[in-house]
């Protein structure tokens, strides 16, 4: 309820702040990552959601599913981009414990998390400035299954991530195709991006982690690439690994984007080698 109210307020804000419009070039809004911001699939980029330029607003809504066989993660949410300057995003994640849930005597159990994201473009333009586009982002994450995540060692059911992202599109950068390079650094306490809570028995301070995406625009509608995201390792009961994926994103128009990926999520909550397909649909307005 609070989720939809906040989203409604954000929509209202966007509609009064600027004219709707899609003045940016195709694919330059990225897709929706599993935490709701504009970016790649698992890594946020410095781009602002939607296709709005400095006097336009827009946004995105998305649904994403990642299945590893043992686990299933569904994320849905929306983002508003204002004046190609601010982004407000909301996402909700359901992490179905699957195999582990059954083993723990909790069949059908899932961990749920809500994420409110804010992003501010500090300077630069993805395409048109020599410097990359650089944005500062903040995420407030709230795990809705605090008792369970505390029982495995998490110190808190909520946390704040802060990240700085730099993204650049090199026109004709490689093989005559446009090349996207994005890196960011994130300060975080989140365990498995917050699905297993924040902080742990092995550490409760902020960790600074690196993330990166590399994409090649095969044609103006199609991007292929790879992503990599390092994560903290705060919980004693189970090792946590970096995440990575290979993706293909297809933008048939400025209204819709489809992403398919193969993701390697490493070890999650004692189950090793979690790999599987990632599928995402994004609507853009």
């Amino acid at each position: 309820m609070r989720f939809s109210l906040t989203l409604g307020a954000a929509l209202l804000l966007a509609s009064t702040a600027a004219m709707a419009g899609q003045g940016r070039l195709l694919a330059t809004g990225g897709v929706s990552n599993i935490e709701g911001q504009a970016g790649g699939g698992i890594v946020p980029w410095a781009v602002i959601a939607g296709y709005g330029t400095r006097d336009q607003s827009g946004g995105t809504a998305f649904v994403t599913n990642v299945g590893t066989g043992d686990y299933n993660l569904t994320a849905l949410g929306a983002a508003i981009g204002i004046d190609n300057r601010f982004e407000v995003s909301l996402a909700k994640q359901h992490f179905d414990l699957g195999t582990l849930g059954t083993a723990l005597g909790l069949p059908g159990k899932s961990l749920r998390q809500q994420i409110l994201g804010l992003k501010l473009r500090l300077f630069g333009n993805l395409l048109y400035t020599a410097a990359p586009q650089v944005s500062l982002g903040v995420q407030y994450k709230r795990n809705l299954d605090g008792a369970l995540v505390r029982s495995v060692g998490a110190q808190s059911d909520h946390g704040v991530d802060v990240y700085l992202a730099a993204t650049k599109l090199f026109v004709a950068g490689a093989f005559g195709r446009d090349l996207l390079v994005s890196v960011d650094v994130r300060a975080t306490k989140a365990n498995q991006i917050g699905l297993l809570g924040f902080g742990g028995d092995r550490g409760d301070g902020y960790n600074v982690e690196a993330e990166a995406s590399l994409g090649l625009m095969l044609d103006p509608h199609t991007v292929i690439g790879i992503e990599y995201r390092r994560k903290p390792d705060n919980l004693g009961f189970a090792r946590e690994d970096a995440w990575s994926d290979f993706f293909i994103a297809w933008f048939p128009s400025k209204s819709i984007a489809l992403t398919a990926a193969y993701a390697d999520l490493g070890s999650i909550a004692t189950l090793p080698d979690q790999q599987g397909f990632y599928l995402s649909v994004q609507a853009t307005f």
Partner: protein
Amino acid sequence: MKRACNWLIAATFLLGTATSFAAGPATDDSLYQALGGKAGITAIVNGMLNNVADDMRIVHYFADANIVNTQHGLVTKLCAVAGGPCHYDGLNMVDVHRGLHITPAAFNALVEDLQAAMTHLKIPLATQNRLLARLVPMRNQIVEH
């Protein structure tokens, strides 16, 4: 994960190599030839202006323009930018767009009309992108700040 890391490192090297090629000298006329010389560039400009005529987002920017001069200026400019044997002697990019209040969205709309014209003329994507890469730095002089 090591695999992904190695991929990123390899790709970063590739990027460095690729961009140093992309930033190579504009002194040769290979792009001009790839675009089909003066005739090819004229067809691209005509195609783009046809697209603009139907483009409600930006057609009004051209309402007071002398279309013959505009067409000639665009062909000469693109020819010179592509390394062809043309000398653009019109106003510089700042002065020729002064007072038009060109927004970032309008600039991108023209880019889309140019891309559509080149695609319609079956110009290979790599050639299109090489031309766009040389136009990108001009955007700052064209868009109103």
